Structures are given as C-alpha cells and as structure tokens.
C-alpha cells in the first residue's frame, strides 16, 4: 500500500509542475465556467417569460464528463509511456515494488489530480446555494430553498466514476506504448468509442444489441447517476472498466519484462 502511495504522490506532485496539467485544468474550468453562465442565463430567461425554473446543474455535469473524455488522455498519456521511453522504467521495475503497485500508483496519482479539479467545480453549487462564512454572508442564495443535494451528490459520484474509468483505461493504454502521442490518440479514440460510438452497432445487429447498449458509458452516467439514480449495475459497469484498465496496465508492464 505504501508503495502505491509513494508512486501516486510523485505523480500528483508532478502534475503541478507540468504545463499540460494546467492546460487541461484551465480549458476544462473555462468551458465549465461558460456553461455555468449559460445555465443561469437560461434559468433567468425562462423566468422572465413566465416559466420559473431553477439552474440545472446536471447540464454542467454532463459537459464535465464530456470534457473529461478529451482531458484525461492528456493526463494519462505520459504516465508509463514516458518511463519506458526515458528508461526510468528500469528504476521502477528493479525497485522492490510489485508491478500492480506501480500501475495502481500511477492511476491513483492521476485520479487525485482529477479529484482536485472536481473539487474546484464545487464552487458552482456553493454559489447557487449561497455560502456563509463566520458572520459574513458572502453570497445570497440564488436558489431557494437550495439545490437538490442528493441529485448533486449522485451526479458527482457518477462523474468521479467516469473520470476514474477513463484514467484507468488511459494508464493501461499508456503502459502499452513508449510514445506519448500514440497513447494519447489511442486513449481518445477508445474513450470516444466507449462514450457514444459503441452504441451504434446495437441498431444494426439482428440480435445481441443489448450488449452494445450496455457498453455505452453515456447511458450509465447521463441516464443514471446524473438523474439521481445510483444502481448497482451502473456501479459495476464503472468498476469493471477500472479493473480492466489497471489489469491491462499491469499485464503490459509484465510483458515488457519478458521482452
């Protein structure tokens, strides 16, 4: 366990000295900022026309998941590919740590970075709800009597599972390649496929379409967690993807030893 933590901590710290992580965080937060603005705008517009509504944070969460699809490959591409290219993998593979500890540590490091990013977005629901620090009312609530916290929690759990799955698959793909760019594009294509495209064959095949439908990540997030429903089948789906990614990574590292 301690080995996993040592690796994870180094990766987490490393994100804060690499421009790519800042670029990902900046772009994601910038776009989410626009979306948040648009969400509020649309709610206030419809109120003007006599249809009162509340700002819908699930729109924001959907966009966040969508952006993660592009952002996470940039965060995971170098994790193991760069170690292989620069030869530092030799250091890690001759250190007294197990291959899976290395892979899980890499994944955990990137996951903690994404959690930091996710934590930064908590500002939006906090703004909507209004916050009180000490005796100073910083903001008055925009939504009264407050937003649906259970739905918000469910959305965030789903979002974190989406991120964790992307990152695990990204680490696995990074372990296969020695070229970061290759790892990036293969990850991106995999995520695009998983998020929407894998559902396309469902309508084309005569039977077994359920499998393809089940594999579509979007329905497990947008049609479940982001609607406030936490079901075991969706949780299992994401946990399976995480396990698959980490297993692929560990196997790729082991294969590297035998080559």
């Amino acid at each position: 366990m301690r080995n996993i933590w040592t690796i994870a901590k180094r990766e987490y710290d490393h994100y804060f000295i690499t421009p790519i992580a800042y670029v990902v965080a900046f772009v994601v937060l910038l776009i989410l900022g626009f979306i948040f603005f648009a969400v509020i705008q649309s709610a206030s517009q419809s109120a003007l026309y006599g249809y009162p509504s509340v700002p819908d944070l699930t729109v924001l969460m959907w966009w966040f998941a969508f952006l993660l699809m592009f952002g996470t490959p940039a965060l995971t591409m170098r994790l193991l590919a760069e170690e292989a290219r620069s030869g530092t993998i030799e250091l890690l593979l001759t250190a007294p740590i197990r291959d899976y500890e290395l892979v899980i540590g890499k994944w955990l490091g990137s996951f903690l970075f994404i959690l930091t990013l996710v934590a930064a977005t908590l500002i939006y629901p906090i703004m909507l709800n209004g916050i009180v620090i000490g005796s100073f009312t910083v903001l008055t609530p925009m939504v009264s009597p407050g937003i649906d916290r259970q739905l918000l929690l469910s959305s965030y759990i789903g979002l974190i599972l989406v991120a964790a799955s992307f990152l695990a698959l990204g680490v696995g793909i990074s372990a296969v390649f020695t070229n970061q760019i290759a790892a990036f594009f293969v990850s991106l294509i995999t995520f695009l496929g998983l998020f929407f495209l894998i559902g396309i064959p469902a309508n084309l095949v005569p039977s077994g379409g359920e499998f393809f439908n089940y594999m579509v990540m979007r329905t497990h997030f947008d049609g479940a967690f982001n609607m406030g429903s936490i079901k075991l089948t969706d949780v299992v789906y994401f946990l399976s993807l995480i396990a698959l990614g980490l297993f692929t990574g560990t196997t790729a590292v082991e294969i590297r030893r035998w080559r």
Partner: protein
Amino acid sequence: MIQVNGLTKDYGARRAIDNLTFDAEQGEIVGFLGPNGAGKTTTMRILTGYMPPTDGSATVAGYDIVDESLEVRKRVGYLPETVPLYNDMTALEYLKFMADLRKIPNSEDRAYETLETVNLHERANSFIGNFSKGMRQRIGLAQALIHRPEVLILDEPTIGLDPAQVVEMRNVIREIGKDRTVLLSTHILSEAQQICDRVLIINKGKIVAEDTPENLQSRLVGSQRVVLRVRGESDELPAKVSKVKGVRDVEAKADGSVEFEFSAGQDVRPQVAKAVIQAGFDLLEMRPIGLSLEEIFLELTRDNANGKKA
C-alpha cells in the same frame, strides 16, 4: 553473495546469454568485461529482477532471483547503463523518492547523506535536468547506494565521464567494494585491472575467461612487451638491448623508440636499464605495453577455435 548457475536468456531466436555460471563473494569487486552486445547488460538486468531468465537460476544475497524477486531487489543497488533520472526533479527530491520506494525511514535525511557520499550535496536543490554527465552518473550511483545494499550492480559506471571523474568514480567504487559485493561491467581493460579483484570476460553471451586481472593477462600473454625510449640518437640501441640475456624480438620503431619482449616470470627490465645506461644513453622511458581488449579477444577466440580452453 551472487551465485549464477547456467543462466540463459533468449530474445526471440537470438541467444543473448548462454549458460553463464559464476559467483561473487562478499567484499569482492567482480568486473564484467566484454564488447558491446556481449550480454553484460542482459545478465545484470536478470540479476536485478528487471527481467526473468529463459533458463538457469541465480541467487543474490541468498534469495532466488525469480521466486524471491522482491527480496533480491531490496538488497541490490543497480545503476543501469542509461542512468534513469527524472529531469524535472531536484537531486534531493529524486533521492527522497527513491528512499521512499525503499521504505527508508527519515528518507529526506538519508537522501541528503547519500548526496554527501557522492559529493553532490551542494547541488541538492538543483534540477537534475541541468546536471552534467558526470553529475548524472554520480546521482545515479547515489540512487543505487541509498538503501545501503549488500550487492551493488553497476552497468558501465564510468562511461562518458572525464578523466578526473573516472578516477573519482573508481575511488568511490573501491571504497564501497571493501565490505560489499560489487559487480560492474566495462569494456575498458585497464579499468577492470585497476578496480576489480576478479574479471569475467564475456563474449557472445559466454564466459571465455575468468581470473584475477594479473593472472588473466600473464596467462594470455606468456610474454611481456616493453617500449624503451632514450634521449637523442638511438641507432645503436637495439644492438645493445639485444645483448641482454632473456630479451627477444627487439624492434626499432620509426619514432626512435625500441620495443622488446621477455618471457613472463623472468623480468629483465632492471638488466636492460643498466645496459642502456652503461652504454651512455639517457633513459627517458621504459613502459610495458598491455594487451588491449581487442587483442585479448582475438587471443581467446583463436584459442577456442583451436579447441583449447582459454
């Protein structure tokens, strides 16, 4: 400390090392001598747990390298040929990371101590990316030493260093080798002669000779060749030298120096020196010409071809 038995490694159809057997005791510095592609790095990678062997077995510090790989890795310090460094870390951060991976308590203190050992503590907070080749090599060594391993495996530790750094690195290795087992690879014969207690010569994945550096050379050579240089004219020198008993193959070189040979075991150099001085020459230089690694290889492969054991 290191026992290797019939170790074999295939990369696809190519056999990188073939049935290697050797051992190394505690406090012994063993040199692995061979040309590029001889299998030195492969052997070291197997012994450090980086890759498993195709066949054969080995124990390091009493643990099997395949079944107890983690135990072996805890006890081995390894400096790979391409020094594995993170350029975006400072020297201290890097060593602290390595110490943490080895679960060393007070890792930062240990990292700093190790930096002192390799004389880099003044650059503790500099980024490794800005280091010179020599400094990179030293921090690589520090990384291998950080857990005070029983066995140290160094792949070409002096490659790419300037002469002063080479001397320094050799001194550090000799110091470490006093109480620990060191296995180092090199393709420089004089280096092996200077620091190693024992030399294994490896070629095409096979050990072709194993002995102390001195024995190896005299066994291979049988006779010693010496170059002699005097001040001024040396036309008569070959004749004078030839008269000394035991001297053979006298040869005058174009640059005015004279070379001769004598059988190993009967050193005629004092007599030659006396004769030269008595003949009125000012003796400037007399030095043995060692065999180069290439010559040793030619020698060894020739012997093998004749069916003799080198």
